[in-house]
């Protein structure tokens, strides 16, 4: 199958003031390659500092890799500048861990939602309002919340709003950087359900960055395990979980606290 997004040998180095005896550069990404098929989910798991977030920033064109290519369709977005870059940015959107910090606290829900549309060049007020309402409905929020500010929303509602804002630009890829980690367990399940529903109805492609292996196991078609800026191993979810080959994967799996499973009650109407 054709890959929608393909990274080739990505390297990202950050210069740093060298403490005596250590190398001059911090190598955050050290030759990362992978591909995501359209409409599927690739989970990136790994310990803190393994390079997961740097990867997210590079893919969202917020950081430029030191070397390597990021193929989005047939464009290498790692090399784009100026207007070409502006054209491609809306197609890959990023959702962060803590919606409380990624939404402007002084703006209302409708202002937050219309900003990306205005930046994109849509100016017709009625159209923006209509689209905002559609987006709110799409992510399961009531249009009555329109005038509220983010602080008047619950954590789950805020993350729904962040997703709606990302969808405003009709992206093809959503990069979810620990997008569920700050939420309560019961709300995580709600948002995970929303993401799965959007994937099947819109054919959305996800890069799901997490250290929650349970959620990765549930949502991802493939899992890539990162360690020290490299991909330690990558493959179909069940293969990685049941036959982990790399030491990092085994360590991550061993660290998952066990929860015996009962039969989940059928809850959501």
């Amino acid at each position, binding site marked *: 199958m054709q890959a929608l997004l393909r990274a080739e040998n990505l390297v990202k180095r950050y210069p740093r003031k060298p403490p005596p005896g250590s190398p001059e550069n911090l190598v955050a990404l050290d030759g990362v390659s992978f591909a995501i098929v359209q409409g599927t989910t690739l989970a990136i798991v*790994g*310990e*803190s*500092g393994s390079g997961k977030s740097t990867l997210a920033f590079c893919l969202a064109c917020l950081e430029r890799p030191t070397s390597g290519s990021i193929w989005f369709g047939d464009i290498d977005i790692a090399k784009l500048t100026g207007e070409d870059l502006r054209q491609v940015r809306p197609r890959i959107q990023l959702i962060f861990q803590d919606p409380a910090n990624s939404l402007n606290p002084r703006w209302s829900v409708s202002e937050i939602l219309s900003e990306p549309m205005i930046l994109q060049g849509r100016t017709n007020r009625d159209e923006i309002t209509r689209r905002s309402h559609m987006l709110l409905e799409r992510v399961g929020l009531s249009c009555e919340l329109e005038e509220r500010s983010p602080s008047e929303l*619950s*954590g*789950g*509602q805020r993350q729904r709003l962040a997703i709606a804002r990302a969808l405003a630009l009709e992206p093809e890829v959503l990069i979810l950087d620990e997008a569920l980690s700050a939420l*309560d*367990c*019961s*709300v*995580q*399940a*709600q948002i*995970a*359900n929303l993401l*799965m529903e959007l994937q099947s109805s819109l054919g959305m492609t996800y890069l799901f960055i997490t*250290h*929650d*292996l*349970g*959620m990765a*196991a*549930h*949502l991802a*078609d493939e899992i890539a395990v990162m360690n020290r800026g490299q991909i330690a191993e990558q493959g179909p*979810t*069940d293969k990685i*979980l*049941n036959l982990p080959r790399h030491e990092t994967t085994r*360590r*991550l*799996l*061993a*660290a*998952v*606290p*066990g*929860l*015996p*499973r*009962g*039969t*989940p*009650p*059928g*809850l*959501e*109407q």
Partner: protein
Amino acid sequence: MEALRGVSFDLKPGEILGVLGESGSGKSALASALPRLLPWNGKITKGAIRFEGKDILQASPKELQGIRGKRISLIFQEPSVALHPTMRAGEQVRQVLAAHEPWGKNAMRERTRQVLSTVFPEEVERISESYPHELSGGQRQRVLIAQAIACGPSLVIADEPTASLDPTAQMEIIEVFRTLREKRGLAIILITHNPALLAGLADRVLVLYCGSIVELGPAATVIASPRHPYTKALFGSIPAIFEENVSNRKKKLAAIPGDSMSASLPLTGCPFEPRCPERMQKCRKHEPQLMELAEAHAVSCFLFEGQSKRS
């Protein structure tokens, strides 16, 4: 707003009590109420807190000073905020000792090293000389634990101590708690929203929902066979890593509809009623009391009325 509504429990020396609750459940209010460290607008209007024979609510400021940090310590969620950014780790532990113990310089230094080495079996010297930014999240959290146990308290209250850590670091912290209980007989109240964390560590689990205890019982029983609809739903909403049935992957998770924002709460009746899959007519009007089902396992839900041992 009532953050806690009639919460009663006891804790034995050396016992680990897991407090499970989501945002708005009152778990953090509980953590700061026990050593009377509530913010200015927080008042304990009713009840009593008895600790080592003293009533904490009646204690004088002087007595409180001898309890906080010395007999009861708190460990907070965000180690990067709780530590002083420009002070070496060892010095931060030493200052806790200096605040409580009238010891000399050498005794203080020796004790600091000793405390740090209980949480860092290796590399004590390097950690002690490091600034917080030079440490990993897990290491910073262990420095906080070292501060908490420096004066040899009998109770440590840890509020989401692993929330910002990756799984490997999480497990390390859990191991540290386990060792502290075994070696020092420390009692621990571990507050978390993650039930998996409590499995295999806690002796008992207390489940809070909107300021009330909904379930309290032996950890093994509560985790393996939860009885309250909220506890059941909470556990059911967490995806399994090793799903027996592979076709369950990418299927809808059993999420609990709605959220627990107290603004939307009914003023009467069971607080979980609006989200409960097993709600009954009377749940809307009456609030259930905690009733004991089996040995030390109590649930507050009308489903179990008549099954109570004592009713």
